[in-house]
């Protein structure tokens, strides 16, 4: 187990360094740099000063080496756009993205799994309806869901149509601020969660109906186990394995989907920040966001593998052996 975790840690480190380094070099080698943000009337001295501040006067390789040396001490340089240390910016954005992703994953689990247990163990109109809705939801990617939800929100004013906080959020006490965020959160979280909830529902329904046809369940019926216990205590436990197996995939889907959801609903997360940074060629902010994204990726796949190992002894053997 220790060896397994150590290997995963090495992999995470490699991923973070590789992703952020390639982002840095890609931004550096791309046509144009951050000085175009100064506008056409910037003086030559100002341009030169900015280039020096962001180490653009060095060769790409030497800039990369310098950045890597600094980043190993958790100094990720400054952002041009925000005129602040990148470390603060990516920390806050990553927290926002993580909050969104965790809420979306919890929502997908709480919606998808009970519905799947229901459709997998029943027949009739209600189950067919749930099945149909989830087939539709599988075809609505976060881009469309978030557009639709924003549209509904702006039509009905049921909940805020975007952003993470209201305009006056800075004056609020922390409890009121939290309530404000909680009012803004359902829209992007639902947009992210819907296709994943539908996937969970379909998988759970499939494996539930498979589990219900196993001989041990017939034995339980013969012993006189109550129908409710039959489903919840006997069939469900066995049927969970395929769900655990796709949790890793679901975490990846959250990460990919979060960019467009953050963009459409103006949620100040990592994807949005990276997009702004890329467009402005804000080189250290790009690299910092990429490093954070790489960390998220590595964490996501680690959680996914651990869940898989918990659910399936064979996978545990393959990973740690």
């Amino acid at each position: 187990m220790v060896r397994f975790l150590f290997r995963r840690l090495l992999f995470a480190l490699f991923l973070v360094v590789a992703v952020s380094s390639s982002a840095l070099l890609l931004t550096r080698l791309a046509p144009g740099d951050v000085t175009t943000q100064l506008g056409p009337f910037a003086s030559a001295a100002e341009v030169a000063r900015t280039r020096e501040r962001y180490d653009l006067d060095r060769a790409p390789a030497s800039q990369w080496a310098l950045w890597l040396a600094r980043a190993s001490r958790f100094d990720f340089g400054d952002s041009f756009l925000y005129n602040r240390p990148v470390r603060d910016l990516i920390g806050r954005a990553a927290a926002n993205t993580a909050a969104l992703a965790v809420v979306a994953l919890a929502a997908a689990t709480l919606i998808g799994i009970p519905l799947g247990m229901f459709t997998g163990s029943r027949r009739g109109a209600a189950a067919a309806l749930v099945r149909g809705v989830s087939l539709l939801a599988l075809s609505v990617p976060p881009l469309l869901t978030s557009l639709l939800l924003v549209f509904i929100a702006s039509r009905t004013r049921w909940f805020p149509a975007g952003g993470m906080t209201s305009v006056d959020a800075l004056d609020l006490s922390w409890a009121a601020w939290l309530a404000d965020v909680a009012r803004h959160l359902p829209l992007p979280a639902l947009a992210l969660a819907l296709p994943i909830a539908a996937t969970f529902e379909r998988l759970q329904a499939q494996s539930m109906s498979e589990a219900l046809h196993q001989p041990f369940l017939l034995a339980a019926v013969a012993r006189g186990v109550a129908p409710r216990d039959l489903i919840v205590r006997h069939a469900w436990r066995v049927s969970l394995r395929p769900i655990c197996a796709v949790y890793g995939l679901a975490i990846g889907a959250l990460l990919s989907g979060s960019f467009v959801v953050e963009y459409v609903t103006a949620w100040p997360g990592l994807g949005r920040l990276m997009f702004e940074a890329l467009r402005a060629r804000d080189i250290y902010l790009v690299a910092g966001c990429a490093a954070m994204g790489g960390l998220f990726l590595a964490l996501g796949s680690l959680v996914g593998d651990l869940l898989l190992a918990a659910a399936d002894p064979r996978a545990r053997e393959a990973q740690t052996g």
Partner: protein
Amino acid sequence: MRAAGQILIVLVVLAAVGAPWLAPNPPERSFPDALYAPPTRVRLLDQGLHAPFIYRQRLVSRLERRFEEDRSRPVPLRWFTGGRLATVDEAQGGPLLVLGADAFGRDILSRLLYGTRASLALALVATLGALLLGALVGGIAGYTGGLADEALSRLSDFILVLPAIYVALALRAVMPLVLPARTVFLLLTAIFVLLGWPIVARGVRAIVASERQRDYAVAGQALGAGPVRLLARHLLPAASSYLAVQATLLLPAFILAEATLSYVGLGFPSAVPTWGTMLQDAANVSLVSEAPWMLAPAAAIFVLVLAVNLTVQGTGRAPVQLLERSNRW
């Protein structure tokens, strides 16, 4: 279910192919008196049954974007004139805007039809490219084994770890922002192929590596078939059903990727109608809540994704494959 999906796909393809003929108006033409005009209703009833006709829409207030139907005179539809399926005589009645008009008074239905062309063409070319490259790389890796296999597998594994939409975004964002449509088409195709091939290659590699050991492949080799012939004629055909499944996963992914990139302003120039640029036109929330017909491209994307998903239904692993796709795109 499968049949319904296939019918929908055929309809979308027909819409793309027949766009110049089906579109009532040229997609780039703007009607200055029809900014944000609501959909023109095609009617059949007017004190009795008539051939399809419309009432002319008159601009009442430009500021409030208010329109009124001129009920005094029905304007009949003209069929098969000027190389188009259905139009109206503009001298008699205003433009025929079946799905309304956008901010520039351009016909949304016509733009949607031409947009289907662009989006579908890009996704199809990119899918074919990814399948070809993936089959080639996977075939070589699975056939030769050894060091080449190891290197190619590691490379594709690394690309597969990355969330493709972010990489696509980064690759597109480091290019100049304003490019002609043709260049954007080639650039996006290249980016999509680059990010799409590894998943194909991984599956093809596994299939080729196992098929190689089978008797028919060994027999082919014994009879003197060279590696190229053996791969192309005997081993890769074994992967054809796998390739078909991958195509159904890549195509919607590329449609969505184009829509996402264009929506955030990194895709096609906004004058070129594609599903993504049309969605970008609909990005202004307050305007769209008054002109919901601007969301027509979203409906088109939904229909295509649904159609493709319906055709892959029935295979038990469909939900997982869909999740694998959205995992990256």
